[in-house]
């Protein structure tokens, strides 16, 4: 009993620390564009992010959490020695956290998802044995790290292409924007809601009939689009700003849409990244409580809530500075561009979350931005930096693995 409490306490501390880090750093990617383009103030952005990150974590975070908890390591080999899995998961959390600290010190573009997956694979392969790793699943995950940015890029390319054709190249872009932006809002709300209902809610214990799911998604999307339409109708052209920048008012209409996609992005991020912090924690809890690896038990809701809360705390304490800094740097991502990138990324991420695949939200978003760039939507993208980002995960996996192996042996020696 004593030992179990120690395990759970340690895992909770590490897990919350990790969630805090995710909230402090990662959430900025979802919200900075809206702040940079003045669609939202910092305060509003924090509030929106807090609500939707939390909702994403709780409503749609279950599948990925399950994958991190028991999808990567084959637990059946550990029935005799479940404590090895506890050490390993604690080691993985520590390793990922330490690696992220090292990376942030040096300004390396590193993904939380990559480091935690690398760490779990590392401790399982070396600490337990090569057979302990579900190589098939790991292969799928690594493949998805290539596929997800590409998919997001492709979707973003199509979305932005349609924006150009329907609105930006027309003689009356403002009229066209007023007409079509509500349609985009409907589309964004519908997609995110539907995927969540179909894929995410089973983990919360909600089961809906297919027809009901679609009806609910359409209903929610109509409500959101109606609110959007009202907000758009209230936008008046500002003649002074129009003189300087002909598309000024058009971008203000898109800013309404940007708010919706920022919510989607925060939701998507919460649904996928909460697992990086609480997946290992969930594993430790289920073992400590039952003494065996509970392959059957579902994730306790309070764990998802804890993860969501950790992210929100990170966001509130430290996230605002990061959002402000990043927002200033990505002014090229105006609302008409930013929404296309975010909608594409959010859709890709939510689908991955529903399927239970941990992917890097930032890489996916970068892929989406490149897609907008290919549609000639961005003034200048530095391909050297993009290259560095995509090389970074090749380094992160072994680094996370090595650190996890190290901590695994230390914990094995120290803990009861």
């Amino acid at each position: 009993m004593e030992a179990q409490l120690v395990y759970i306490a340690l895992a909770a501390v590490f897990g919350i620390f990790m969630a805090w880090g995710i909230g402090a750093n990662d959430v900025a990617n979802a919200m900075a564009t809206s702040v940079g383009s003045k669609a939202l103030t910092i305060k509003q952005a924090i509030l929106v992010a807090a609500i939707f990150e939390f909702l994403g974590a709780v409503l749609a975070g279950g599948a990925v959490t399950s994958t991190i908890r028991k999808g990567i390591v084959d637990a059946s080999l550990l029935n005799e020695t479940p404590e090895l899995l506890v050490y390993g998961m604690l080691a993985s959390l520590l390793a990922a956290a330490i690696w992220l600290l090292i990376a942030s010190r040096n300004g390396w573009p590193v993904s939380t998802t990559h480091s935690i997956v690398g760490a779990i694979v590392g401790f399982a392969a070396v600490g337990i044995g090569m057979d302990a790793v579900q190589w098939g699943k790991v292969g799928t995950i690594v493949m998805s790290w290539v596929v997800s940015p590409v998919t997001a890029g492709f979707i973003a390319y199509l979305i932005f292409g349609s924006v150009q054709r329907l609105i930006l190249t027309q003689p009356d872009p403002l009229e066209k924007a007023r007409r079509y932006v509500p349609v985009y809002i409907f589309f964004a709300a519908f997609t995110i809601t539907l995927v969540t209902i179909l894929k995410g809610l089973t983990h919360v214990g909600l089961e809906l009939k297919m027809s009901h799911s679609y009806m609910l998604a359409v209903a929610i999307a109509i409500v959101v689009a109606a609110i959007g339409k009202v907000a758009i109708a209230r936008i008046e052209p500002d003649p002074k700003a129009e003189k300087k920048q002909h598309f000024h008012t058009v971008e203000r209409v898109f800013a309404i849409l940007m708010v919706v996609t920022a919510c989607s992005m925060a939701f998507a991020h919460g649904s996928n990244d909460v697992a990086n912090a609480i997946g290992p924690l969930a594993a430790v809890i289920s073992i400590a409580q039952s003494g065996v690896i509970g392959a059957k038990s579902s994730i306790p809701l309070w764990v998802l809530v804890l993860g969501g809360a950790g992210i929100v705390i990170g966001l509130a304490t430290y996230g605002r500075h990061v959002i402000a800094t990043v927002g200033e740097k990505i002014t090229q991502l105006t609302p008409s561009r930013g929404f296309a990138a975010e909608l594409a990324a959010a859709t890709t991420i939510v689908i991955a979350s529903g399927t239970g695949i941990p992917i890097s939200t930032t890489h996916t978003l970068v892929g989406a931005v490149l897609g907008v760039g290919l549609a000639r939507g961005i003034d200048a993208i530095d391909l050297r930096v993009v290259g560095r980002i995509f090389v970074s995960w090749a380094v992160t996996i072994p680094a996370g693995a090595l650190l996890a192996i190290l901590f695994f042996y230390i914990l094995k020696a120290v803990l009861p």
Partner: protein
Amino acid sequence: MLANMLANIFGTSPVQPLEKHCDIAYQCTKQLNTFFACAVKGDWDGAAAARKLVEDLENQADDVKKEIRLHLPKSLFMPVPREDLLELLLVQDKMANRAKDVSGLVLGRRMVIPAQISDDFLEFVRRNVDAAKQARKSVRELDELFTSGFKGAEVKLVESLIEELDRIESDTDERQADLRAALFRIESELEPVTVIFLYRVIELTGEIADMAERVGRRLELLLSH
């Protein structure tokens, strides 16, 4: 930290700096109106003051030019080829350079424009400055072009601006020919060396409109991608 992943993939946008550079280049040519108005009257103090402004603005244009080049590494991915933007920058810069050359030549030699052709000459200078102004007006549309992805209604607008620029340039060509003819008729009354340099001044001034026209050509190339 991780957020910087997103922030750092954006290079510096060349759009606003290019517009700013073209504006400075135009302001630089604009000083020639004042400069020659003084030179024709023989007010060399006023001319020197105008020439000082020309020099300052030309230096400013050079600084902005260097700044733009520094921020356009080969690794940048843009909607239009980097070379085309650099070429546009080059011809914009040449408008300012010609203004500096011609004012330097006139001030250095204290050249008096003959009274018979001075009015036509001042009008000729004005039209060249108009060409530079129209070039600036066209380049000012760059941000809109980037926003609309170099397609659709915005392209038609820029094309019409460039057509107007071409018309102004043709007008300067005609005036240049008339000026040369007028100078030819009176050149026997003037110092031979002075005459040679007067032809040179007419030629250099006319090159301002030529460069403005080339700004238009470069913009057209951007549109055709």
